[in-house]
C-alpha cells in the first residue's frame, strides 16, 4: 500500500486555499489563479520531477485538452450538456495521440535534446493548426455565444465560473493522489533509477521506455484535463497563440523547480509561492512586479537549489514529521 500520510499536507493546503477563496470576498479568482499554477506544477512534476526529463513543449498537452473541449463544445453543441463529458474524453484522446507521437520520436532523446525537441513539437503543431486552418486556424474557437444560446446565459455563466473551477480542483486532487501512487509504486522506484542513471537502470533490466512512457502519459493527460477546464471551459474560447504559448511551460518548470522536483509537496508549494507572489506584487506594485519578482526568484534559486521542499526535507530528515512530507 502506498503512503497516504504524505497527502495530508497538500490536501490541507488545497482545502485551506479553497476555504479562503470561498470566505474572503474577491479572493476566489486569485485562489483559482494559484490553483492553476499548482495544477500545472503537479501535472508537469509527474513527468519532469519523476523522470528528470524537461519538457519545454509541455504546454502542447494543455493545448490539446483545450482543443478537445473546444471541439466538443463548438462542433457538438447539439449534444447539450453531454458535450462537456465528451470534451473531457476528446481532451484525453487528443493528448494521448500527441503523447504517442511525441513519445515515439522525442522520448528516445536525452536531456536537453529531448527538452528542445519538444519545443519543436509545440511550435510545429501550433503552426500546423494556424497554417492549415484546422479548427478555425488562427481565429480559434469562440464558444460563449453558442453556450449562451444552447444553455441560456445563466447556465453558461455557471459553466465558466463554477463548473470550470470545480473541475480544476477535482483534477488537482486526483493528480496529487496519482503522484503519491507513482512515487511509492514500482513505477516510482523504476523512475528513480532512471533519474539517477538511465543506462545503469537499463542494465539492471528495468524497462526504461515503458516507465518513462507511463509517466509521460500520466502527466500529459492531467495537463490536458487542466487545459480543458481552466482554459476552454473557463475562458470559453480557444486561440492557438494563447494555448501554445510556451511561457506557460516555463512557468510550470519554474514552479516545479521552486518547490522541489520529484516530490509531492514541491509543486504545490512552488505553485503557491509563485502564484501568490505574482498576484500580490501585481496588486501592490502594478507594472513593477516582475522587476521585483525576478531577483526574488534568483535569491530563492541560489538559497534553495533543491527547491523549497527539498531544502525543508533535508533539514527535517531526522524528525518525525518527515513522514508527512514526500
Amino acid at each position: 500500500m502506498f503512503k497516504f500520510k504524505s497527502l495530508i499536507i497538500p490536501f490541507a493546503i488545497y482545502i485551506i486555499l479553497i476555504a479562503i477563496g470561498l470566505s474572503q470576498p474577491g479572493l476566489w479568482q486569485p485562489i483559482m489563479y494559484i490553483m492553476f499554477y499548482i495544477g500545472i506544477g503537479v501535472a508537469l512534476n509527474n513527468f519532469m520531477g519523476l523522470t528528470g526529463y524537461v519538457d519545454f513543449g509541455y504546454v502542447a498537452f494543455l493545448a490539446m485538452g483545450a482543443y478537445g473541449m473546444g471541439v466538443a463544445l463548438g462542433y457538438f453543441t447539439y449534444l447539450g450538456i453531454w458535450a462537456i463529458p465528451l470534451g473531457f474524453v476528446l481532451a484525453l484522446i487528443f493528448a494521448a495521440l500527441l503523447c504517442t507521437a511525441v513519445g515515439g520520436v522525442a522520448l528516445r532523446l536525452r536531456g536537453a535534446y529531448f527538452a528542445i525537441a519538444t519545443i519543436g513539437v509545440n511550435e510545429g503543431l501550433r503552426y500546423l493548426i494556424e497554417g492549415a486552418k484546422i479548427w478555425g486556424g488562427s481565429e480559434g474557437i469562440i464558444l460563449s455565444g453558442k453556450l449562451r444560446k444552447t444553455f441560456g446565459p445563466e447556465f453558461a455563466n455557471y459553466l465558466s465560473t463554477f463548473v470550470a473551477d470545480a473541475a480544476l480542483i477535482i483534477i488537482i486532487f486526483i493528480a496529487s493522489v496519482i503522484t503519491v501512487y507513482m512515487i511509492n509504486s514500482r513505477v516510482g522506484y523504476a523512475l528513480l533509477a532512471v533519474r539517477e542513471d538511465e543506462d545503469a537502470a537499463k542494465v539492471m533490466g528495468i524497462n526504461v521506455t515503458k516507465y518513462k512512457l507511463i509517466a509521460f502519459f500520466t502527466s500529459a493527460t492531467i495537463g490536458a484535463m487542466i487545459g480543458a477546464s481552466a482554459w476552454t471551459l473557463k475562458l470559453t474560447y480557444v486561440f492557438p497563440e494563447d494555448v501554445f504559448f510556451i511561457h506557460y511551460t516555463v512557468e510550470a518548470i519554474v514552479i516545479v523547480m521552486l518547490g522541489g522536483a520529484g516530490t509531492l509537496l514541491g509543486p504545490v508549494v512552488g505553485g503557491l509561492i509563485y502564484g501568490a507572489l505574482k498576484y500580490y506584487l501585481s496588486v501592490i506594485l502594478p507594472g513593477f512586479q516582475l522587476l521585483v519578482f525576478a531577483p526574488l526568484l534568483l535569491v530563492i534559486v541560489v538559497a534553495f537549489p533543491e527547491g523549497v521542499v527539498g531544502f525543508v526535507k533535508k533539514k527535517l530528515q531526522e524528525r518525525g514529521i518527515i513522514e508527512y512530507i514526500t
Partner: protein
Amino acid sequence: MIAEQLAANIIYGLLLGGVYGLATMGLSLIFGVLRVVNVGHGAFIMVGAFTAFWMFTLYSIPPLASIVVAVIVGLAMGFVVFMTIIRRLLDAPELSTLLATFGIGVFIEELSKFFWGPDYVGYSWDIGGISLPFTELPFTKLYAFGSSIVIAALLYVWFSRTKLGKAIRAVVEDKEGAMVCGINVNMVYALSFAIGIALTVTSGVLVTLFTPVGINVYMGGDYTLKAFVIAVLGGLGSPWGAFYAGFIFGLLENGSYTLLGLIPGVEPFGLTRFVSFTALLLILLLKPTGLLGGE
C-alpha cells in the same frame, strides 16, 4: 515565375540563416562548456538590438561599428551574470540554472523596459542595395550576413589556434582532463559564458541590420525559441553545428514557402514554420544528437 520566386526565397533564406546561426552560437557555446541552457537568451539579443538602436539614433554610429560596443557590453554582462549567479549554481542540480537564467532574462527585460520604455522602435540606415532580376538585396542584409560569417570565422580561428581557445575546447571535451593540465576551469567557465553572451548580444546588432524595425524589450522570445531549436538541430554544444543549422533553418523557413504556396486553401507562410520545426524532429529521429553533435 515560380523558379524566380524560389531563387529569391532561397537567397533570403540563406541571409536570414546567417543571422540565425550567429544568434545561436552563443547559446550553444554556453551549453557546450557549462551545460547551462540559457533560457534568458532572447533578453541578450534584445540588449544587442537596443545597443545598435541607441548607438545609431543618439550618436549616429553605424550598426556595423556598434558590433564593437556590443561585444564589450556582452562581455561585461556575461561576466557579471556569471560571477553573481551562475557560478553559485554550477554544483547545484542541473535544472536550477534553468530557473536562474529564466529569472535573469525576465529581470533584464523588465529593467530595460524601465529605462527604455515599452515602445517598438527602429532605425533607418538606408545605404541602398543590389538589384537582381528577381529581387532586391539591401546592403544592410548583406552586411548582416557578411558580419556573421566573419565573426564565426574569427571565432573558429581563435578556438583552433590560440591556447585559450584550445583550453575552452579542452574543458568541453573533458573537464577532469583539463584540470590535470592546470587549466583553471572556473576561469574558462567565466570566459566562455562571457564570450557566449557577447556573441548573443552581437547577434542582436545583426538582427537589427536584418530587421531594423520592431525593436522592443520583449522581442527576444521568438529568437529564443528558434535559437533553441537551431542549437539542437546543429548538435547542442557545438557552435559550428549551430552555425550550419542556422542556414538550414533559414532555408527551410523561407525556401519551403514557394512549394507550400502550391497547396490550395492553406496559409503557406504559417506552414513554413510547421515544416522547419518538423524537419528538426525528423533530423533528430535520424541522428539523436543533431547534425554535428558528438556524444
